[in-house]
């Protein structure tokens, strides 16, 4: 490198490097730093594995529930969370069925916490109007965080 890079090229490369860094908004970096809060919280990430709005038309017409406008499924290694979105609410179901607490996590942190009943059902109303994640926790230590949801 010592031989290949003359002063002008080194200075140009340094300029690029510093500009690439300055282009990143501070809030974007903050989100990354804050993610570390999940270290040691043994939460499993549940990824989106089904979204009716991404399926071909046939998928929609097969659904019997006329009131449901969108269905989402999040799957982690041990749990599945199914969501049915209707006009003004989100009906959730944890599988296997079990009680627990569902937290709605907006960008700024937890905005609400609701109970999942004995069969793992919970109702979110109204529908959050900004992107959120759901965190589901049980008394025996299960801790699941879904991918981000925008409805």
């Amino acid at each position: 490198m010592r031989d290949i890079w003359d002063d002008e090229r080194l200075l140009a490369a340094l300029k690029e490097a510093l500009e690439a860094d300055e282009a990143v908004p501070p809030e974007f970096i903050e989100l990354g730093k804050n993610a570390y809060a999940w270290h040691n919280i043994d939460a499993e990430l549940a990824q989106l594995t089904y979204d009716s709005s991404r399926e071909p038309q046939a998928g929609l017409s097969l659904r019997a529930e006329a009131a449901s406008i969108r269905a989402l499924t999040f799957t982690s290694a041990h749990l599945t969370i199914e969501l049915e979105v209707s006009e003004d609410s989100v009906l959730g179901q944890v599988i296997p069925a079990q009680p627990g607490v569902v937290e709605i996590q907006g960008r700024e942190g937890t905005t609400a916490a609701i109970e999942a009943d004995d069969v793992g059902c919970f109702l979110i109303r109204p529908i959050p109007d900004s992107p959120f994640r759901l965190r589901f926790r049980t008394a025996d230590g299960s801790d699941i965080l879904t991918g981000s949801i925008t409805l």
Partner: protein
Amino acid sequence: MRDDSSVSALVARAQAGDQPAWNELVERYAPLVWSICNRYRLSRPDIDDIGQTVWLLLVEQLGNIRQPAALPGWLATTTQRECLRVLKAASRYDSVGSSVDSQVLRDQSTPVIEQEVIAAELHAELRTAFANLPARCRQLLSMLLSDPPHSYAEISATVPIAIGSIGPQRARCLEKLRRSPALAALSDLEVEGGEVSGARASETGGARA
């Protein structure tokens, strides 16, 4: 990819629960994640979301990292995958789906990612080396790099430094930069075409809507 002892150390400390080490990793690689997101025509909330998801996935995988040198490559491919996931969801509502498809195909090419990873590593090492320069050197080089450029008279008055010394001092500072351990380790990366090509590619490819 080469081993990078400083990244290895940061990863080890982050694995052990050290938030400052994690913060350094985020600061080091956020420009890489950001530049990849900006290749796609995504909204700022989508980009924030993708960034958050990528870092959450890294937190989850932190304990499984065996080769810290592979981290930037992992971040790049994970970021791209999340971008494509969001794009795919959006394209359903997008009447110009075909243009999105061709863009996706073009951007999926592995060489682009590899170039970006190499450029990101180079940039990160340059920033580390720069941060370790004496304050006077940092100030002088910053003023020389500013856009629009400062005149020698302004630089002379601010640093302060005699106008006749700016040239020699600039050369000395750049030599310090060149000799810093962070950059010396990169000598083998700087060959292909002799250009920081990944950065250029990401700039031209990153047309924003």
